[in-house]
């Protein structure tokens, strides 16, 4: 009961934030909406019982990656988005059929596969840090080690790109 109410609240915040992200004209407002989306997603993870993932979602996505976004907007001083009339006409022409197609596909998937899949019971899944640690350092050891190479490439790429002009 409590889980369902909380889920509905945070899901509504999440969807509202996502719509606001698209509707806002200023990049910094959009970035703020994205932070709200990340935060409410973390709460949804929490309701599923994936505590560690929820905390990491806040620390990494809301607290680190979005800081980078806000920084870039502040540094570049990106102004308000300019919307031309033709652009929105193109969006109208292509967007309505696209939306319809997406709705039909979703409906088809839901009617075909919806009832068959087992529903997730909120609050029953246990994704504690210990469980994650066990999985990460036993079964998924190789992906974990390969992640370090990925991070290394990210470090080098960032520094090379940022310093190219000097």
């Amino acid at each position, binding site marked *: 009961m409590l889980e369902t109410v909380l889920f509905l609240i945070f899901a509504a915040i999440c969807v509202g934030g996502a719509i606001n992200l698209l509707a806002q004209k200023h990049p910094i407002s959009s970035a703020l909406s994205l932070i709200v989306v990340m935060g409410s997603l973390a709460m949804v993870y929490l309701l599923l019982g994936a505590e560690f993932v929820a905390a990491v979602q806040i620390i990494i996505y809301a607290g680190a990656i979005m800081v980078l976004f806000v920084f870039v907007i502040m*540094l570049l001083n990106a102004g308000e988005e300019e919307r031309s009339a033709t652009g929105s006409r193109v969006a109208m022409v292509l967007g309505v059929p696209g939306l319809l197609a997406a709705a039909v596909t979703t409906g088809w998937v839901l009617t075909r596969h919806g009832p068959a899949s087992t529903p997730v019971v909120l609050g029953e899944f246990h994704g504690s840090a210990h469980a994650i640690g066990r999985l990460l350092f036993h079964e998924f050891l190789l992906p974990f*080690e390969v992640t370090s190479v990925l991070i290394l490439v990210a470090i080098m790429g960032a520094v090379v790109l940022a310093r190219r002009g000097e």
Partner: protein
Amino acid sequence: MPQNYVPIFIFLLIAFLIGAGTVLVASLIRPNNPDKVKLMPYECGIDPVDSARKRYTVRFYIVAILFVVFDVETVFLFPWAVQFKLLGLFGFVEMMVFLGILIVGYIWIWKKGALEWI
């Protein structure tokens, strides 16, 4: 289980209401007579020169991206640390490989001068 987190949500709400409430109350009782000079951006008394919305140095960007990268590394260390007593020496070697690769990257950016702030 999630009910243990409910107090945090209540706290967030109350903390926000305290901030919003005091600003609201203050706006009802404080004086309000602004003039042109009071409302100028602060530049030590002289008229503002140029806009504040300019491009700033790329150093801040490098710091932010290095933060993202090393924050990910820190987050990997957390589940390892709480699980360490069970993982034992094997866990130590695992993490040494992971950290070793990242320390190579760290030394590289140091040598490259990305940590210098001039």
